[in-house]
């Protein structure tokens, strides 16, 4: 019998969904997720202003979205470094699932959308 630490999950799609929906299962992160969809490339400071949340706490929440592969991050230098966010392929697929249509989480359509995106964006 394998040890717990060695045990590998067998269904990568479900694992992927668990990670993504664990990240989105928070009202602040869900608001940021919608905002990033509406304004692709939105800088970190603008998200903080729009959501009206202290930047330290927002940094944590944005870190969760990034670590879950829900958002893509770019760093640009405009005098000082700026972090910008946009939804990657996985984020867009999740957005469609949540806001545009209502497929069952086990439906073929929902599974197909997630199957088509890359494993981890960063």
């Amino acid at each position, binding site marked *: 019998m394998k040890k717990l630490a060695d045990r590998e999950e067998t269904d990568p799609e479900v694992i*992927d969904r668990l990670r993504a*929906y664990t990240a989105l299962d928070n*009202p602040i992160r*869900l608001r940021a997720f919608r905002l990033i969809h509406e304004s692709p490339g939105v800088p*970190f400071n603008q998200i903080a202003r729009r959501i009206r949340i202290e930047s*330290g706490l927002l940094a*944590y929440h944005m870190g969760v979205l990034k*670590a879950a592969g829900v958002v893509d991050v770019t760093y640009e230098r405009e005098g000082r470094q700026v972090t910008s966010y946009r939804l990657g392929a996985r984020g867009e697929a999740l957005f469609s699932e949540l806001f545009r249509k209502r497929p069952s*989480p086990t439906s073929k359509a929902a599974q197909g959308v997630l199957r088509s995106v890359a494993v981890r964006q960063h």
Partner: protein
Amino acid sequence: MRSPREGLSKGSTVRSVHRFRREAERRLQRSGLVIILLGSSGRGLDERRDVAHVLARRGIVALVPEDDFPVEIGPSVLEVDVLERSDVDLVFLSIESWGAATEFGQFSSNPRIAPKLRVLVRPEYHPVHSPPGSYLTDLYLTHLVRYGHVYPVDGGRQAPVPSAKALIPMLVERHREIKAFRPLNITK
């Protein structure tokens, strides 16, 4: 404002996200977790990245602040205030530098963070493996008695203890099983 055809209302979106998460948890028989990996830079940072990668493949959201935080915010901003108010499940702290030891002092004295803290120290500083001598080792002993979760790691040939890389996934895996099946047993 969105029409019903365009999307879900705010409340039902939150419920949908929660439902999708529960569905995935039910199928995997494990809970979703958010964890933070803190420690020193250099080799310690590489090790945390490796651990984060292993955990991600298991469906866990694992943050390495140096990689996942926006550049506008220094990793040291992950202070008591932020951890207190966040929904993080576990905070792993590898103590390999004085900076990490300072963080330990801050987190350990905060009753809202201390139960989530998992402290990793080398055996020569662990109070069970070596008698408490310094103030810091004494602080580890206090934390061990109050909360548990002070682990010796990376002993090499001299001490038969697991590496941090092996220990962290094992602890996380058991934590999510307990959270899934006996959530009331999780100390918050």
